[in-house]
């Protein structure tokens, strides 16, 4: 899964090949089926979670994954409140400190793009896991989504995937990158133009001859769902939008919120395929959800399973950082 012993950081989904991803799915499945068998796999290893931005699931699942593998996850903080970051301490200084405290792996969530890659230049010893760097990447979320898709669909190729909601500021829709490594996958982007899929992502797909279509009119949603295997929602990332009170920020809040919403009625009209699944990285913003509550009443809602798989996926990643299981076989 990792190509060498000297680099087992998890910074970008681009660092993983198709074979790496298949290895990851393999070990995660084995762990999920028999997690008791791995309960001492990371005994004596310590995780530090340095979270400069808010998180529920990414923070908790990494800690829970470490504990289930027999390691410790007491080091770190889940908010900069009360830390020396508030006194102006640099990220580099904080990273070096946690290295000195004995962290074997550091999960970093930071508001600046590129902070996780930068962290790999600073530390010497602990592996870095990118828990989300600004608007940039969230690779472990992409990996758990891949695992969930494979679990439900039984394959990672030949899929039609709709991405809808805030595709511009949402990191998790970068799931297109690993999925584009597999043959025959087709993507559909449905979003208000202000939050459409970024041009560099579309350029990436064009350069690799990966098929995609782009729509902005929500009226087409049932037709898209009818032909899709997966609909993946991304909440409005208002915390990353231009500020409220600015012309652009106010316009976005007026026009984007509630512009594309998946409802039970949309699904009913669509008559989806039997294998259709609705995914969402959570949290859903209950003030203006891109997926309404009543979707839960359909048999297609998979985001609770997706969230649960967050623990197993992170167990698979952590286990692979410290064990060369794929070399032994």
């Amino acid at each position: 899964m990792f190509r060498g012993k000297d680099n087992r950081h998890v910074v970008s989904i681009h660092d993983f090949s198709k074979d790496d991803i298949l290895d990851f799915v393999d070990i995660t499945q084995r762990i999920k089926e028999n997690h008791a068998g791995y309960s001492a796999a990371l005994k004596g290893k310590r995780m530090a979670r340095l979270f400069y931005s808010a998180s529920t699931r990414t923070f908790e699942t990494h800690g829970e994954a470490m504990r289930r593998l027999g390691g410790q996850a007491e080091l770190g903080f889940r908010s900069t409140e009360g830390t020396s970051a508030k006194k102006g301490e640099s990220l580099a200084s904080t990273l070096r400190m946690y290295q000195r405290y004995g962290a074997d792996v550091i999960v970093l969530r930071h508001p600046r793009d590129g902070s996780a890659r930068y962290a790999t230049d600073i530390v010497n010893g602990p592996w870095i896991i990118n828990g989300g760097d600004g608007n940039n990447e969230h690779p472990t979320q992409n990996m758990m989504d891949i695992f969930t898709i494979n679990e439900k669909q039984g394959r990672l190729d030949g899929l039609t995937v709709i991405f809808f909601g805030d595709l511009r500021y949402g990191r998790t829709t970068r799931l297109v990158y690993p999925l584009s490594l597999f043959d025959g996958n087709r993507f559909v982007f449905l979003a208000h133009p202000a939050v459409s899929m970024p041009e560099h992502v579309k350029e990436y797909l064009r350069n690799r001859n990966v098929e995609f279509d782009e729509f902005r009119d929500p009226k087409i949603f049932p037709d898209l769902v009818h032909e899709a295997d997966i609909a993946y929602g991304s909440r409005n990332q208002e915390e990353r939008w231009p500020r409220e009170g600015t012309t652009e920020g106010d316009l976005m809040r007026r026009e984007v919120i509630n512009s594309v919403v998946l409802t039970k009625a949309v699904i009913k009209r669509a008559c989806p395929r039997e294998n259709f699944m609705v995914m969402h990285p959570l949290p859903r913003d209950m003030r203006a959800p891109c997926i309404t509550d009543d979707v839960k009443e359909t048999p297609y809602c998979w985001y609770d399973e997706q969230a649960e798989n967050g623990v197993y996926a992170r167990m698979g990643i952590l286990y692979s950082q410290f064990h060369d299981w794929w070399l032994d076989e």
Partner: protein
Amino acid sequence: MSDKAVRAIRFGMVLDHIRPGLGAVISNVIKNRVWSEGVTHPVYTGEGVSSSRMSRKDFVKLDGMHLELGSDALSEIAVIQPDVTVNWIENGERTQKRTARECIGDEIHTDLIECGNPNCIANYEAHGVYEVLDRESLRVRCRYCGTEFKAKYNGRL
């Protein structure tokens, strides 16, 4: 620059056709890069010298050592002004001449560029590291956030 000025150095570098005002900046780049390694070869700066090609120009001479092709110093000079003429001098004769643009390495380590992504850590805390994608257009990719953009001198130094 006159031939006499070039001949005045037996072994070293002459950076010529520098836009007026940038000579001191380029001199500082060399001092920061070379002197920080414990070497103190003399660096001379000429400012506002008359030139047939560009009316007025600056020049910088580094006496006693050569900068390597692809070095951080030459890459930074290329960012500041890509068409600076870089001359290598041995035994008082010019042995090689290139534009600064042709001297850029595969990677530039510098704080003289702002990453094209305003939210990148390189614009706040990290020292910038950029992979050079195209020397002619100075297109680079940020090591940290992956953003591709055209490198532009940010006016520091």
